[in-house]
């Protein structure tokens, strides 16, 4: 197993806890009518975004999905600006204009959540092309869902990345469902990673609730990409605790399924793994738990007290140089 420094472990734990707190709070706020729109929560999949992004720096890029909060937090986007965005407030990451499904922070290499399933694949080829043409060592990670695997754009992106040996890591987050449709129905293969052979790239399936498995697989793929050896397809199998979006009655979940989720909870597993092996002191984890709650409390307070956009914001930012009336 790859070595992980305790510093990195604590970073991962902190990010996972922040994600979980953020999502739990978002669910409550949505139920209370505080958050408008479509909100897709990442709880249950924390080990994927964090295990992958633990290998990246601010200069590396990620593309994301409609379920993007976890990717943002793993890429160290400020949770205050994220929460303000969910509220549609002016200091939001996107000035309140994007909302949950378009949350982005290019300065952190986070190229945006994306409302179009499969939309991020081609974009990932683009940021990777920039790195390749300019000869930087930047890597791009393209997160996409199991459902997105059936979208033609992902096929095109994987083929292009392969023939151009672009520094991309394709990470398929297989949470078992595309909305209410199970992966066993919508996918013609058992493991999405089996499709890697269709692009002559390495492919592997890992347990997406096991941070160590994700970390190791992503590490190798990212090193490979940085070396100029081209893309890899990693499928991480996990689950989502919440519905497809908030408001989903989740009629397609059974009690047994829910029990299975609890048993695989990525955060509980992480705690057990690191504590059993005494990799970090429990007190440090507990501190992080507390800080995560505080950070989200703070983010909510910030969002609530932040100003709304002003009417002229409607018409700005459509173009850089063409102010439209």
């Amino acid at each position, binding site marked *: 197993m790859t070595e992980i420094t305790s510093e990195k472990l604590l970073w991962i734990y902190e990010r996972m806890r922040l994600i979980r707190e953020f999502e739990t709070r978002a669910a409550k706020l949505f139920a209370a009518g505080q958050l*408008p*729109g*479509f909100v897709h929560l990442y709880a249950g999949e924390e080990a994927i975004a964090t295990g992958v992004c633990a290998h990246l720096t601010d200069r590396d890029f990620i593309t994301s999905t409609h379920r993007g909060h976890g990717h943002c937090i793993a890429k160290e986007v400020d949770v205050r600006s994220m929460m303000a*965005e969910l509220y*549609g*407030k002016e200091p*939001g990451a*996107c000035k*309140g*204009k*994007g*909302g*949950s*499904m*378009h949350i982005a922070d290019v300065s952190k290499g986070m190229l945006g959540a*994306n*409302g*179009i*399933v*499969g939309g991020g694949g081609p974009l990932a080829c683009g940021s990777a092309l920039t790195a390749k043409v300019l000869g930087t060592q930047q890597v791009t990670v393209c997160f996409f869902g199991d*459902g*997105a695997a*059936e*979208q*033609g*754009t992902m096929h095109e992106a994987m083929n292009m990345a392969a023939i151009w040996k672009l520094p991309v890591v394709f990470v398929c987050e297989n949470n078992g469902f*595309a*909305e*209410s*449709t*199970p992966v066993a*129905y*919508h*996918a013609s293969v058992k493991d999405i990673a089996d499709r890697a052979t269709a692009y002559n790239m390495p492919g592997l399936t890992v347990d997406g609730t096991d941070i160590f498995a994700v970390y190791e697989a992503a590490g190798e793929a990212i090193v490979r990409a940085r070396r100029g050896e081209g893309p890899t397809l990693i499928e991480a199998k996990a689950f989502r605790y919440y519905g497809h979006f908030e408001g989903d*009655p989740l*009629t*397609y979940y*059974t009690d047994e399924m829910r029990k299975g989720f609890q048993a695989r909870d990525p955060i509980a597993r992480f705690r057990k793994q690191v504590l059993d092996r005494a990799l970090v002191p429990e007190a440090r984890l507990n501190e992080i738990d507390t800080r995560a709650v505080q950070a989200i409390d703070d983010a909510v307070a910030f969002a609530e007290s932040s100003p*709304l*956009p002003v*009417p002229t*914001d*409607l*018409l700005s930012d*459509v173009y850089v140089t063409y102010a*439209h*009336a």
Partner: protein
Amino acid sequence: MAPRILTFREAINEGIRLEMRRDPTVILMGEDVAGGASLPYVAGKGEEAWGGVLGVTKGLAKEFGRDRVRDTPISESAIIGAAVGAAATGLRPIAELMFVDFFGVCMDQIYNQGGKLRYMFGGKAKVPMVVRTMIGAGFRAAGQHSGSHYSVFTHMPGLKTVVPSTPYDAKGLLIAAIQDDDPVIFFEHKLLYDVKGEVPEEYYVIPLGKADIKRRGKDITIVAIGRMVAMALEAATHLSAAGLEAEVIDPRTLSPLDEDTILESVAKTHHVLVVDEDNPRCSMATDLVALVTTKVFDYLDAPPVMITAPHTPVPFSPVLEDLYIPTPEHIVKGVQEMFEPVTA
């Protein structure tokens, strides 16, 4: 007898259901249109789980079975293309494009295959299919789930486009669309789904290409599309109080367009204002203004007015989105300025 009241959502469901009962070649397919019906444990409950993302097709998989009501992968090109291919060979598919905003991943199959096949084949084929799709802002669904864009489809020869504004119209127009031998794009405004209205239980057809005069008036013609019809009617009430009687025309079908009903109205009222929730450039609003000004120019006593969304994507923040959508106030103001021009 008390009138039978249904929501817009229920009216659409009923339209599909009646046609599927009548015609065994009608099938339905799209992402989650059954919704977990593919899960044995859900099927076991005797009901599908979702019936589409906003529940419009609930109950159909149960009645017609999974052979005729098909969940699909997230593969819009394959969904629409399969509908085109099926339509050309003997079925009457209803394909769902969940949000119109996704047309960019499948437009080729819609306009280049479905829309042109008959012409390119010299009339030796037909494509009797319907694409149902959701439109409209106001749901706080942000930049990629709130567009209207029926103009793009209306632009394309070979396609017919329908935008219903009431539950009654939705049912009758949808039945007409399914029976039609040409590809029809049927636009459902997501904010209308919970709107209620009278809908008779029986089977009825509203012919495509016939506008509906939703309110009679002599002073100005307001042409409004989809959800904007209600805005126009509300504005008309205010205007009436101020002494102006607006005639509100709902084209219902954008292609073919019932030009006569609109032109006759303008010839009578000498004024026209169009209300379109879509972006303004190369839009239905400009289409309607061009129709009126090229054909009954001499009847106009004032410049036509367009009330539309601005030339921006749909913003997320509710305060901004509310500014994006045309309102009755905008319409009233537009009409008033037409009658009492502001002197600078």
